[in-house]
């Protein structure tokens, strides 16, 4: 690590752990108020996420794209940019992977699979390059452009899957199924296994390692972080600020694009028409912030979000908690983690006087 923190892992995790617990308590209060039994509900959350092997598999399937989009937001954020466009970058990643996955039929797997995955990353990067370029060269704020690019991606994919890339064999707006040579292996069983968890999760972890490596071990990452932390000082030090911003946007776009490619190659095997944004990109923002913009933190936060999102569905399905209340539980936890200072303050209230007394005694001794 470039900057080991004093105090160790427990210090780092103390606040998020307390935040989760407080969030769960607040959620329980809400559920009790609306007439649901919090214990049954949380039981449903746990069993729904981890009860059966297939549940664990599905939870991981949910976590997988969140890792990528969380990384995407985090990388841009390190350069001081807000990549709200991960949503659109993920869509073009899906489309690109669906097209290459089908069009490359006949290629050997060793070439076809990487090609398909990378085409998704490339498409995402290109999509991010537009707001990245406008920001770096002209100083146009990236948020507005990213949002526009999201809509362009959504409607473009809608057009494509209803026309040029639509599978003529079926009525529904699907693209053709990609070749087996472009599919990611599922860990248990073949491509039709009900255990949908696949090697995409390994790609996600590798991506987190890669982002960590780039940010903390390379000069490019140093530039990105310097620009994000103090653009003025970076400029004074001779760092090319626009370039660092552009590079971080490209990296961010490729991460979101990977999210799409892995979704297609590991789960869907085709592009399915979207009627609205799926929300992985938006959730990625919360994932990145909760993960403290740190690649490993992102993996942890994505896991938490995956569990909560899937758990919310399970609470609805099994414990009949209204969808909105399940949402509130989720929001309460996120809010508590985001309001870190608040939780930290609470933690120190009872501890403060104890700590003071203890230290004072030591000093006197």
């Amino acid at each position, binding site marked *: 690590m*470039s900057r080991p923190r*004093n105090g160790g892992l427990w210090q780092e995790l103390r606040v998020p752990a307390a935040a989760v617990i407080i969030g769960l308590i607040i959620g329980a209060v809400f559920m009790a108020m609306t007439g649901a039994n919090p214990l049954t509900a949380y039981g449903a959350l746990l069993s729904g996420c981890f009860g059966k092997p297939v549940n664990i598999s599905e939870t991981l399937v949910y976590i997988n794209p969140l890792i990528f989009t969380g990384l995407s937001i985090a990388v841009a954020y390190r350069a001081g940019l807000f990549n709200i466009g991960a949503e659109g970058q993920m869509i073009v990643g899906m489309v690109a992977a669906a097209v290459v996955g089908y069009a490359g039929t006949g290629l050997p797997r060793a070439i076809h699979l990487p090609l398909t995955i990378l085409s998704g990353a490339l498409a995402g990067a290109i999509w991010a390059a537009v707001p990245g370029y406008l920001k770096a060269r002209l100083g146009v704020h990236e948020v507005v452009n990213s949002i526009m690019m999201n809509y362009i991606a959504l409607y473009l994919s809608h057009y494509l899957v209803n026309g040029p890339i639509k599978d003529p064999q079926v009525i529904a707006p699907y693209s053709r199924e990609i070749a087996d040579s472009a599919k990611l292996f599922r860990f248990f069983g073949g491509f039709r296994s009900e255990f949908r968890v696949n090697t995409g999760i390994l790609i996600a972890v590798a991506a987190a390692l890669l982002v960590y490596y780039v940010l903390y*071990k390379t000069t490019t990452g140093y530039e990105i972080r*310097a620009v994000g932390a103090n653009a003025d*000082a970076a400029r*004074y*030090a*001779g760092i090319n600020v626009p370039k660092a911003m552009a590079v971080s946007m490209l990296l961010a776009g490729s991460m979101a694009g990977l999210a799409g490619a892995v979704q297609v190659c590991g789960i869907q095997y085709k592009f399915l028409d979207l009627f609205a944004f799926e929300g992985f990109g938006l959730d990625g923002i919360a994932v990145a912030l909760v993960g403290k913009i740190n690649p490993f933190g992102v993996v942890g936060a994505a896991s938490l979000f995956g569990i909560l999102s899937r758990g919310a569905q399970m609470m609805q399905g099994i414990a009949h908690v209204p969808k909105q209340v399940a949402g509130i539980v989720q929001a309460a936890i996120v809010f508590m983690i985001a309001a870190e200072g608040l939780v930290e303050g609470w933690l120190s209230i009872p501890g403060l006087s104890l700590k003071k007394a203890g230290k004072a005694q030591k*000093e006197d001794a």
Partner: protein
Amino acid sequence: MAQSQRVPVLAMKGITKQFPGVLANDRVDFTLEQGEIHALLGENGAGKSTLMKILYGLYGADSGTISVRGQEALIREPNDALRLGIGMVHQHFMLVQQFTVAENLVLGSEPRRRGIFLDMNAAVAKVKEVSEQYGLAIDPNARITDISVGMQQRVEILKALLRGADILILDEPTAVLTPQEVSELFAIMRNLQARGKSIVFITHKLKEVMAISERVTVVRRGRVVGSLDTSSTSVDELARLMVGRDVELVVEKGPAHPGEEILVVDDLNVLDARRLPAVRGVSLSVRGGEILGIAGVDGNGQTQLVEAITGMRRCASGRVMLAGKDITNSEPRRLFESGVVHIPADRQRHGLILDFSIAENMVLQTYYRPPFSVKGRLNWEVIRSEARRLIEEFDIRTPGEDVPAGSLSGGNQQKVIVARELSRQPELVIAAQPTRGLDVGAIEFVHGRLVEARDAGKAVLLVSLELDEILALADRIAVMYEGEVVGVLSRDEATEELLGLMMAGAARGSDPDASEVATG
């Protein structure tokens, strides 16, 4: 202690504060009498700001007690302090740049109409009233971005007074002020004192301690080493107490041996942020082996001149040459590579990345070159060991090279910059306010290093608002007034009086070119 003694307005007893790896305050006792100006003195990182932040409720002490007017007080946050009548003006200001003076002053306690509407007229009136009461003239409707640092400081002082402060903590208020502003501040402090306010005054300038305070408390490495009546002490004694050894308060330097012209600035014109001319037709040259000082009242174009030379601001016209090569409007990186180093005046904004570790900050310009990185891969081993070396050499007080620069004391932040810049084998050193916020020991050291650079044949361009510093270091002195160089004097010609007149625009020196010939 005499029994007849009044109850002090403030008594801190046995204050201890441990930061990771640093014992910032070690059983500190500090008392402030009613109506006194009490100087708090100590080396960089001695724990002065920490002690005052504890008093103001920004940090919690690990142990110790605070009594205000004889009553033991629990101060957990600034609001508690304010309720007790304690106000603080920080070393680094905390104003909202885009707000007006009045808006900043009422922030947090805005006067309201019908409960919810901000009553700006009432705010402005209130500000006027209080500022007149204390003789702190200020325009309530000016934006913070548009007013000088001295004015911003008045806003901070007013802010504390408006909130009812009787005990005023001023953390290095003079570090950012011009000499004129310092005397204005002193007048304000005397006025406040006359109205019964008690003041804690942190400074590194011993002259100021002698000039304004009644008592002085000296801290070294977190401990109080003495609490004295100012009238019964001397500058030398204070310096010795502070640093723990004798300090050379005057720089030892031999005659200059100027060589080739290294920096030549020819008829330079530069616009400021509002696109008004800030530097007007400036021509200068600095030879290897000499220190050229630029004197002037703040805001007379020095900042823009330095920015233009260092590639941070475009030159509207004119030329900048470095060792015969045209470097006008060059990229900062090209300048660094040709041997220009720069100590910027605003350390927190331009000189450091506060969230980065010291090690990361030490390679801010050089990270992309061997040995710090090879083929785009950073070599942390080398970076960190270089940082450790510089920490050692420049006596930066820190628990290690991995702590964020933002956690260092103000003076130690400055030392990080000085260490980084002077260690880069420069041809030309551009130093703007290089010793701002440094203690006497550190100033001695930095001055020594600048003279050393000169003696090694480097060119040094020193911009300082402090005449003392200019007179101590410079071999030649250029005075700027309203964007122009109104004269270049040799050190022998320069007297404080003449420089003062020139800086005020009341006198012109000899022709710059002529004086160059005279000394060259």
